């Protein structure tokens, strides 16, 4: 290997090294046990009154949150997983799979209240009913 090739190789490596700096790695924050009151008129959810979620995300650098938790009902509970993101206007949009085959979409929740109505669909996208969540303060 000639000296020129060595120099070129080093230059390429240096280039990669400088590119690596362009990627910013941040540590997401977990907020555990966030609790909302819940109400729904969907069959199987009418006795569910409490939504408890762990939310993970980087609120400083990003917009999104991962959600995992459960929907508490008097007769038991459903596993919940989903995502949420903040819009540019600061509203929170949440989509959650509740149990199997039910999806709750709570859109445009004002950041000041993090509460509002939800649409509840089955797996085919047909509306099953309505819901409502209100964060506990």
């Amino acid at each position, binding site marked *: 290997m000639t000296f020129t090739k060595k120099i070129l190789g080093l230059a390429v490596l240096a280039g990669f090294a400088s590119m690596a700096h362009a990627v910013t790695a941040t540590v997401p924050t977990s907020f555990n046990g966030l609790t909302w009151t819940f109400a729904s008129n969907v069959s199987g959810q009418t006795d569910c009154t409490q939504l408890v979620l762990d939310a993970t995300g980087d609120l400083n650098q990003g917009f999104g949150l991962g959600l995992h938790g459960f929907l508490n009902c008097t007769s038991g509970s459903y596993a919940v997983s989903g995502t949420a993101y903040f819009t540019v206007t600061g509203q929170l949009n949440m989509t959650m799979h509740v149990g199997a085959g039910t999806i709750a979409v709570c859109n445009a929740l004002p950041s000041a209240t993090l509460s509002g109505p939800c649409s509840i669909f089955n797996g085919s996208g047909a*509306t099953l009913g309505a819901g409502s969540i209100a964060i*506990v303060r």
Partner: protein
Amino acid sequence: MKHAVAVTAALAGLCAASLYFAEVIDSRRAEPVPVAVNTKFNPAEVAAESPAAERLPSFRLVGVLVQEDGSTALLEVDGQPARSFREGDAITAAWTLAKVRPEFVTVTGAEKSVRVGLSGGVGAWNKSAAASTPAPSAMTPMAEAPPFVPLEVARERNRPFLEAINARTGGS
């Protein structure tokens, strides 16, 4: 001596005068004071006939589900978290959910009905929703549920999140 007699006479006069005026004042107190009575509106009677339960609460219709086998509505009453009511359910002691329609519900009391529109909520006109889209079998809650989180604990857990959101959005 003359001076003493004059003083005694003056004191006697003063006593007589005070006794007279005391009598007059007492007799006036005993007289009934005329009061204008409005026979058409007696607040006490109205209060007795219309208990506080008749007060129209503030309703917010969050969502409706119209079905053949019983329509339901999600209502916030007086700012409380929304609850699900079926047609015919009593919302409060004085107000009943009379009708559920895709865009509004009617709440009736003893003397009047109120129409509450769907504002920013969710409506579903699923006439045969129950038949065509039965709740999946998985929509049976798990047998063992985690315990309900007490509100005090929930408030404590939510605080850092709410503060972070507040900091992110600048309190908007």
